[in-house]
């Protein structure tokens, strides 16, 4: 089980690194991989971090919405096929 946690942590680190030093597409890509493979509560949190950092007040929080959609849309798919 340790290697699964290790992989999950690596994906989270890549997503966070993407937020801070870019390029911009790294974060959504890492979020997608995380959401596909794991039941990851980190995905919407990473989205929130990106929005809080890069979005001005009043911007539509696209990263967070993307994270929430990924998390909940992939939930049934993960339950059926992956877990």
């Amino acid at each position, binding site marked *: 089980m340790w290697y699964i946690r290790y992989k999950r942590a690596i994906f989270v680190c890549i997503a966070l690194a*993407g*937020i*801070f*030093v*870019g*390029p*911009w*597409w790294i*974060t*959504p890509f890492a979020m997608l991989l995380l959401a596909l493979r794991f*039941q*990851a*509560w*980190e995905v*919407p*949190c990473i*989205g*929130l*971090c*990106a*929005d*809080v*950092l*890069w*979005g*001005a*007040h009043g*911007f539509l*929080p*696209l*990263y*967070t919405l993307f*994270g*929430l959609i990924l*998390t*909940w849309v992939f*939930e049934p798919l993960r339950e059926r096929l992956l877990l």
Partner: protein
Amino acid sequence: MRGRRALILGTVVVLLILLLDFLSGGGVRGGLRMLESSVWGMMERGAGALAHVGIFKSREALIRENETLRAQLLQMQTETAVSSVLQEENARLRDVARVAAESIGTTARIISSPYASAYGTFLIGAGARDGIQEGDLVLSGEDGFVLGRVASVDTASSLVAAVFAPGHSTQASIHGADVSVTGWGASGRASVSRDVPVVEEDVVRSFDYENRVIGTVASVQSHPASAEQEVFIALPFSLTKTPFVYVVHSL
């Protein structure tokens, strides 16, 4: 079941923080932006030190040198590097001063990656305490090109929305023809009638930015079947090589 509970809890926390941020007028953002500027600053300093000290130079050559010579060489290289960095910075600041002479504002450093945000935003190291306000124009220090407008202001930093932010539309003028430029991230795109003789490096001005220059024509694509040509507009320099910007205060 435990994973699902964590997922629900995470979602609720995220929604609560979003709501709190919305109600506080963006109050949650300051801390994370300070962290971003620290991370970016550390990376820039680290990359600069590696480039100038010469750690990745020929290892064999360094082994052949004796300890004293190596120490002396390192010291001299460091001094030269510091001197050249200062000279470069001085030249850039002189350019900024030239732009500053034309309008009242503040010089600031870019403190984040200019290409890390999908919203086309970046951070500068000047905020409310320097007199920055939302809507202030942000110019490149060297040539006075418009980079964007201040979208949100914290105490010591500000978020700038770039001219070519994805999906952002700007009214501009190329060769006297009025066009609408749509942002694509690092560049913009406009459809111009084929009657207008657009060529590469033509200057593009925008009415939305006080008729200042927002970029130059990077390339032109036309098709015989179309009455219009696609014009791609970009800054003639890389933002990563522009450490300083000039923020023009709104009157």
